[in-house]
C-alpha cells in the first residue's frame, strides 16, 4: 500500500513538476496595474512625508519666532538692568557693600533714609535743568545736586524718566514720583537740626559741584515750576536730607540715575533670509493648436480639450532663500514642489497603432497621450472602449525660481511685489483611469507615463502681497500669486499646453 501511495505521489511529481504553463497576457497587465498602483501609493506617501516635513519646518519657524519674540522682551529688560548697573558704576565708582535693595516691582515702605534719597533724586532732576538754563537758583540747586551724588544707601532705581513733583511744605514733607514706582508715598523728610552729617554737607565746596544731566524726557514745565516755587527750600531740604542720610559707615547704597533709558542697540540682521511657503492653487492650461502635428486626428484639438478637461486641485510648497540687495530689494531663489491635477470627462476611445505596431487604446490629454493597459486583451480595429467615469491626470514639478522682490515697510506692516522666472522639471505624471476589465465592472488603473510631455519647461512668477513682522526676524506674508509657463509642457502633440495657476501663497520668513 505504501509503495502504491509513493508511486502515485511520484507519478504526479515527475509528470507535472517539470511542466511549464505560460500565463495569459492579462496576468502581466494586471500585475503591471498593481505595480503602478503601488508606485502611486509610494508617491502619495512621499508627498505626505513632504507635507509633514513642511509643516514641521513651519512649526519650527513659528517656534523660533515665538522664542525670538519672548527673548527679545527679556533682552530689553536685561539691557535696562545693565544700563542701571553701568549708571551705578558711573555715579559710584567704589560702591559700598550693599546689604539691602528695593525692587521697583515690589515696592516696600520707605525707610527714613530711602525717603531722603528719593527726595534728593528729585531735587537733582529739577535742579539739573536749572543749571543748564542758567537759572539764578542754580547755585543752591547744584549744591543740592552734588550732595545727592554722595554715597547713599543702596536702592535700585531704574533709569526711567522721573516726573518730579516737589511740593515742599512748611512741615517739610516731600512727594516724589519716579514715574515708574508710582506706589511711592509722600514721606516725611524728617529733617532735624540735629541730624548727623549736617555740617559735613554744608562744608561741601561748591566749586567741586558739577551739574548732572537731566533726563531729556522730564517735562520742562513741571521741573521748572517746582524749582521756581521752592527752589531755595528744596535745595536746603535736599542738602539737609542728603547730609542726614550720609553716614560714613552706611550699609546701604542707592543708585541714582536721571538719565532716560538708552535706546536699545539696533538689531543686527544678516542679508540672508529663509522663507517657507504653501500655496493652494487653481491650475488651468492655455492651449494652442499645434499645426505641425496631425491635428485632424482630434479635429479642433484645443477646443476639444478645453471642453473635456476641467481644472482640479493643485498646490505648491517649498522654500526660498533671500538675499537683501538693498533696503528694498531682495533676490530670492529656492525650490518648490507643485502638484496639479485635471479631470477628464468620460469619453469613448478607439484603438490606435502603438509604437510596436500593435493596436492599443490610448487616452489623449492636452498634456500628452496615455497608453492604456490591455486589460481585456488586444483590441481589434473595430473595437471601442467607453470610459464611464472621470479620469484624473496629475503632473508634479520641482521648480527653481529666481525672483526679485521690492518691499516697503512701515513699522510692522509691509507690502511687496515680486516677479521672476522659474525652471520647472517634471518629476511625475500619471493618469488614473477607470475602465472595464474582464467583467463588466470598472476598475481603476494608473498609467504612469504620458508620451509627449517635456521634462523641462520655463515659467514666470509674479505676485503682490502684504507682510507682517511678528518679530525682528520673523515675518508672515500673504501673496496672491500668478505662475505661468512661457514654454509648452509638451511636444509633438495636437495642442501645445501652457499651464498657468493662480494661488494664494502663505509664507513665513526668517531673516537671519
Amino acid at each position: 500500500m505504501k509503495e502504491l501511495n509513493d508511486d502515485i505521489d511520484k507519478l504526479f511529481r515527475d509528470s507535472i513538476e517539470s511542466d511549464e504553463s505560460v500565463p495569459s497576457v492579462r496576468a502581466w497587465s494586471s500585475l503591471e496595474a498593481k505595480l503602478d498602483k503601488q508606485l502611486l501609493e509610494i508617491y502619495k506617501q512621499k508627498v505626505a512625508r513632504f507635507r509633514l516635513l513642511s509643516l514641521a519646518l513651519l512649526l519650527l519657524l513659528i517656534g523660533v519666532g515665538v522664542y525670538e519674540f519672548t527673548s527679545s522682551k527679556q533682552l530689553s529688560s536685561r539691557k535696562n538692568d545693565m544700563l542701571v548697573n553701568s549708571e551705578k558704576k558711573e555715579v559710584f565708582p567704589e560702591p559700598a557693600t550693599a546689604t539691602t535693595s528695593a525692587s521697583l516691582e515690589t515696592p516696600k515702605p520707605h525707610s527714613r533714609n530711602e525717603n531722603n534719597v528719593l527726595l534728593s533724586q528729585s531735587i537733582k532732576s529739577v535742579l539739573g535743568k536749572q543749571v543748564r538754563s542758567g537759572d539764578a537758583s542754580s547755585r543752591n540747586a547744584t549744591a543740592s545736586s552734588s550732595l545727592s551724588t554722595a554715597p547713599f544707601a543702596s536702592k535700585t532705581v531704574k533709569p526711567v524718566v522721573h516726573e518730579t513733583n516737589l511740593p515742599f511744605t512748611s512741615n517739610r514733607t516731600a512727594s516724589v514720583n519716579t514715574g515708574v514706582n508710582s506706589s511711592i508715598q509722600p514721606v516725611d523728610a524728617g529733617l532735624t537740626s540735629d541730624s548727623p552729617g549736617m555740617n559735613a554737607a554744608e562744608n561741601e565746596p561748591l566749586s567741586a559741584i558739577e551739574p548732572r544731566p537731566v533726563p531729556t524726557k522730564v517735562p520742562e514745565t513741571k521741573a521748572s515750576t517746582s524749582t521756581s516755587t521752592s527752589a531755595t527750600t528744596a535745595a536746603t531740604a535736599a542738602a539737609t536730607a542728603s547730609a542726614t542720610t550720609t553716614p560714613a559707615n552706611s550699609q546701604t547704597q542707592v543708585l541714582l540715575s536721571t538719565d532716560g533709558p538708552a535706546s536699545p542697540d539696533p538689531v543686527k540682521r544678516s542679508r540672508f533670509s529663509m522663507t517657507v511657503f504653501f500655496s493652494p492653487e487653481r491650475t488651468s492650461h492655455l492651449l494652442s493648436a499645434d499645426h505641425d502635428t496631425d491635428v485632424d486626428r482630434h479635429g479642433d484639438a484645443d477646443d476639444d480639450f478645453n471642453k473635456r478637461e476641467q481644472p482640479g486641485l493643485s498646490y505648491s510648497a517649498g522654500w526660498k532663500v533671500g538675499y537683501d540687495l538693498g533696503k528694498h530689494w531682495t533676490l530670492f531663489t529656492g525650490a518648490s514642489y507643485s502638484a496639479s491635477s485635471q479631470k477628464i470627462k468620460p469619453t469613448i476611445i478607439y484603438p490606435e497603432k502603438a509604437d510596436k505596431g500593435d493596436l492599443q487604446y490610448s487616452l489623449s490629454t492636452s498634456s500628452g497621450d496615455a497608453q492604456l493597459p490591455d486589460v481585456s486583451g488586444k483590441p481589434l480595429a473595430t473595437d471601442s472602449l467607453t470610459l464611464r467615469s472621470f479620469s484624473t491626470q496629475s503632473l508634479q514639478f520641482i521648480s527653481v525660481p529666481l525672483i526679485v522682490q521690492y518691499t516697503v515697510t512701515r513699522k510692522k506692516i509691509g507690502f511687496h511685489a515680486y516677479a521672476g522666472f522659474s525652471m520647472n522639471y517634471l518629476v511625475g505624471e500619471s493618469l488614473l483611469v477607470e475602465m472595464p476589465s474582464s467583467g463588466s465592472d470598472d476598475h481603476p488603473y494608473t498609467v504612469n507615463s504620458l508620451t509627449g510631455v517635456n521634462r523641462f519647461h520655463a515659467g514666470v512668477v509674479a505676485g503682490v502681497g502684504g507682510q507682517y513682522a511678528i518679530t525682528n526676524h520673523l515675518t508672515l506674508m500673504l501673496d496672491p500669486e500668478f505662475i505661468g509657463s512661457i514654454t509648452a509642457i509638451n511636444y509633438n502633440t495636437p495642442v501645445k499646453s501652457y499651464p498657468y495657476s493662480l494661488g494664494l501663497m502663505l509664507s513665513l520668513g526668517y531673516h537671519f
Partner: protein
Amino acid sequence: MEALIRKCIEGDRHAQNELYKMFSPKMMNLCLRYSRSREDAEDTLVEGFMKVYENLPKFRNQGSLEGWIRKIMVNTAIEKYRKKNVLYPALHLDDVPEFSFSASDVISDMSAKELVKLVQELPAGYQMVFNLYAFEGLKHKEIAERLGISEGTSKSNLFDARAILRREVAKSLNLAKASNE
C-alpha cells in the same frame, strides 16, 4: 541575475517584466496545481509576483532565486486558501475500488495538463494537502500547522486525495484504452 534583481528593486519596469517572463511559466504551473481554474491560478501568480517584487530587497542571493520565488508562490496559495476558509466536503470513499496501473502507462497516455486538471478537481483541502506533501515535501505536522488543521486531518486528507487520484487516473487510462480499441 544580480543586475536584474537590482534593477527590479529600483522599480525598472523592463527588468520586472524580464524576471516575470523568466519564472512565470514554472510558477504558473505551480499555481495551477493549487487553484481550481486558470483564472484563479493567474490571480495567485499576480499576487505572488507582487510579493516577489516587494521582498526582493530581502533576497540575499544565498540560494536559488527560483526556490525563493517558489516558496513565495506556495505561501500565497496557502494564504488564499485559508482566506477562503474552504470547508472540507464529506466524501464517501468506502466504495472506491483499488485501481492498479503502471507509471509508464500514465506517462505515455496522460499529459501533464490532464494530471494537473485531476489535482485541480480535488476538493480544496485534499488538493492543498496533496500538493504540500507530494510536491513541497512537507510532513503532516508542518502541513497541519500551515493549514490550521490537525495532523490526523492532514493524513486522512492525503489518503483520500490519493484514492481519488488513483481512481481518476484509472478512469482516464481505461477511457483511453477503450477509445484506442
